[in-house]
């Protein structure tokens, strides 16, 4: 619903005072969405995956910059392996690398921590904390505990 794909049954979702369904593409200039289906293509390698997914959101990423980001994500040396040879956790790291590039205000993260080890979760936490420090908003749907250091956090416990 927050993604604007599903119309809410009642009420409306507003961003900057305007209904997101009437904002259309303008809304997505402010949003980065990462779902549980991570959208990493098996046939492309990590580098191509990252550069293509950034290009689709309108950011041209140079090769060396993409390489350094992937290295930050703990994928050094695996940049040019086809993604089908990567483990599920590594693929997810490739998808997460997009967060380090984008400069949107709102992050919608849906179950991004499945099949991730402890160090990767720490990585996500630092990415989110940095994002919040920069004045961004992150909405995170998760089953795991994640403590984020931030000025304001809001916690919604839905039915377990």
């Amino acid at each position, binding site marked *: 619903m927050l993604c604007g794909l599903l119309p809410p049954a009642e009420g409306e979702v507003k961003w900057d005072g305007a209904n997101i369904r009437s904002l259309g593409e303008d809304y997505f200039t402010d949003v980065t969405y990462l779902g549980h*289906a991570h*959208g990493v293509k098996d046939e*492309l390698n990590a580098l191509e995956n990252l550069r293509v997914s950034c290009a*689709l959101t*309108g950011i041209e990423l140079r090769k060396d910059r993409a390489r350094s980001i992937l290295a930050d994500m703990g994928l050094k040396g695996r940049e040019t392996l086809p993604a089908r040879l990567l483990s599920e956790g590594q693929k997810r790291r490739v998808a997460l690398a997009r967060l380090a590039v984008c400069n949107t205000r709102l992050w919608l993260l849906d179950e991004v921590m499945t099949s991730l080890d402890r160090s990767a979760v720490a990585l996500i936490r630092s990415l989110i904390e940095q994002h919040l420090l920069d004045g961004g908003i992150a909405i995170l749907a998760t089953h795991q505990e994640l403590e984020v250091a931030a000025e304001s956090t809001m916690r919604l416990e839905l039915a377990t």
Partner: protein
Amino acid sequence: MLRWLVWRDLMLAWRRRADVLSTLFFFVIVVSLFPLSIGPETQLLRAIAPGVVWVAALLASMLSLGRLFANDYQDGTLEQMLMTPQPLYLIVLGKVLAQWLAAEVPLIIAAPLLGAQFGLSSRTLLILSVTLLLGTPVLSLIGSIGAALTLGLRSSNVLVSLLVLPLYIPVLIFGAGAVDASIMGMTTLPNIYLLGAVTTLSLVFAPWATSAALRISME
């Protein structure tokens, strides 16, 4: 952006070239079966050639339609594409363009070689290529509407054929008609103009319809 999208889809097609090749071989085999089964009656072969090549092209392009959105839908890429600041119209156009380049262009290249089996003159073969060049984009464009509508449904491949094949009829009539006219020694221009009109029309409206269908399928 469009450049990246087309590059990505072509790259994916290249790394999975077996899919593309199977479409091409399907086309080659279907067209070749007719001369083999009918025998060496030049007159008859020449008369059925336009229809056979065009129907085979329609069927072959049906094979690749299922892949247009389905893979991206399954791994979540489509979801992300819908949520980019790019107009969906352009994304659809890019994907259709890549599909056309990967799946239809090989057919256009192979068609004159196959037409030679039917004893067509070189002028007719040229007309055949021109009509395919004009007509196959329509197949991809209209096909994309069907592919988007049936996204995520069971037995979507059969459903796509049922939805889309009737819509291909105008292309079939004008395309095969032009080649027919050329065989008879008449002017082919009216048919080619009409085919061009169909192409232009679907170029404008099909991506828009596909975008709407995608939004419905993703809800």
